[in-house]
């Protein structure tokens, strides 16, 4: 297997998989974000991680953007935690690109607004717009990076278990776990429909083909809907009464609590220190 060593990690896993299994089902859409590593972050109970992530985001969001030193501290701390979780920085930043459509308007904010203006290079900017925009971009990025660390170090399945434990309504957890289970089935179905289309010489080149694609999407929706009904029947046949089985949960040790709460706690320390220095 030495030739595998020269391949990038995800490719390696794919090859290893196909060797064990003789059939092909495509990769798991639901677990695409998870990166398997052995780290203290990976091994922590998922509900603790969710709590820590939310607490950290709350601290970051409630820090005034004018306290810019604190945000430098936050970013360094996030990168340290990513390093502890053995998440490559390139992966971290690549995944962070997902926020671009969301912060697009924040970037425009300095150009439109009212009040005091100032000139920065070729641009004539509004001060308030700049501050508000920067706040959204910086805080948004911190939130996204935190979410990426969580989703990269925890399987989607585990995150759901964590949310269930945190008393998210059972119905929402059930809907999400069914999505996780069936996204692969639906994806395979979509793939087969595409192959069937292509086999009859279809090539989506422009606007005029949208009708075909829309019809296909409609067919996929109907099929998924009908599958949902069949799944429900099969659940009823096995005595389903609205509750999915869940594991008996063990209480986490105080040490894991302390460790995981370090994540928001360090942020608080950064916030207090920078505020004191600022004054």
């Amino acid at each position: 297997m030495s030739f595998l060593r020269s391949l990038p990690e995800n490719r390696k896993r794919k090859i290893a998989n196909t060797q064990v299994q003789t059939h092909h089902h495509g990769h798991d859409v639901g677990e695409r974000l998870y990166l398997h590593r052995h780290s203290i972050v990976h091994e922590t109970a998922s509900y603790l991680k969710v709590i820590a992530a939310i607490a950290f985001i709350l601290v970051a969001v409630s820090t005034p953007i004018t306290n810019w030193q604190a945000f430098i501290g936050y970013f360094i701390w996030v990168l340290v935690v990513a390093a502890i979780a053995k998440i490559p920085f390139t992966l971290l930043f690549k995944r962070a690109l997902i926020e671009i459509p969301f912060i697009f308007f924040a970037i425009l904010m300095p150009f439109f607004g009212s009040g005091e203006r100032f000139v920065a290079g070729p641009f004539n900017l509004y001060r308030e717009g700049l501050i508000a925009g920067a706040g959204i971009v910086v805080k948004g990025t911190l939130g996204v990076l935190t979410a990426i660390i969580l989703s990269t170090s925890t399987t989607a399945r585990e995150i759901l278990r964590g949310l269930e434990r945190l008393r998210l309504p059972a119905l929402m957890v059930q809907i999400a776990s069914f999505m996780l289970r069936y996204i692969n089935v639906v994806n395979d179905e979509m793939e087969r429909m595409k192959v069937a289309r292509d086999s009859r010489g279809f090539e989506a080149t422009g606007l005029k083909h949208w009708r075909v694609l829309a019809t296909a999407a409609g067919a996929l929706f109907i099929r998924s809907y009908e599958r949902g009904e069949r799944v429900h029947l099969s659940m009823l046949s096995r005595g389903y009464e609205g509750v999915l089985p869940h594991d008996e949960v063990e209480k986490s040790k105080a040490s894991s609590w302390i460790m995981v709460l370090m994540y928001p706690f360090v942020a608080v320390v950064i916030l207090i220190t920078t505020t004191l220095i600022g004054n």
Partner: protein
Amino acid sequence: MTTPSLEIKELAFAYPDGNQALFGVNLSINKGERVALLGPNGAGKTTLVMHMNGIHPTAQGSVRIAGELVDAKNKESLKRIRSKVGIVFQDPDDQLFMPTVGEDIAFGPYNMGKRGDELEALVNEALELVGMVEFKDRPPHHLSFGQRRRVAVATVLAMKPEILVLDEPSSNLDPASRRELADILRSLDITMVMVTHDLPYANELCERAVILNGGVIVADDSTRNILTNKALLAANRLELPVGFSIQ
């Protein structure tokens, strides 16, 4: 004589759109029997199966499982009925909805109130019966079709049903998986109803066969007698594969 596992009397059913599917079905199956339910597409086979555990409420006639009346309004009794009738659906992806094989098999017994070690033992036993023990922690998506079908059988076996109902068990299976499943089914000591178009499979596994056509049972005999009656098969759009003959 002991109480039959399944007793259907004068069962009739029409869908809400007025399309009548069953016109007075009578069928009695004794404990330990393996019966093939044959019939062309649209004969009402699936509708009949859906009556066996009260998914379709009985509108007219009666269905009894081990003597107990299937009554969709009686929630307590329905719960018992559903643990007694194990239906294996045609598409295993409809049946396997939990994240892992083990959790899926635990679903039925969990709903029946089993917990802890008892639940664990039921899951392991069911996995052993279908030879899938080493796949317990795998997601169903990673299994082959034949393996998924076997797990689907295990999900209902874990409920210790009185009667096992299989909808097209051999469909989409490659020859080896088909034979493996036959071996598993033959090894089970359980009353079985097998809905199928696969006549050789019915012949291999079931000593008795009934033909459902146009919403009524038109034939009820030994599988051998039915499959050698060419006129009867032809009248009901059933055909043995070319080159296949029963001695």
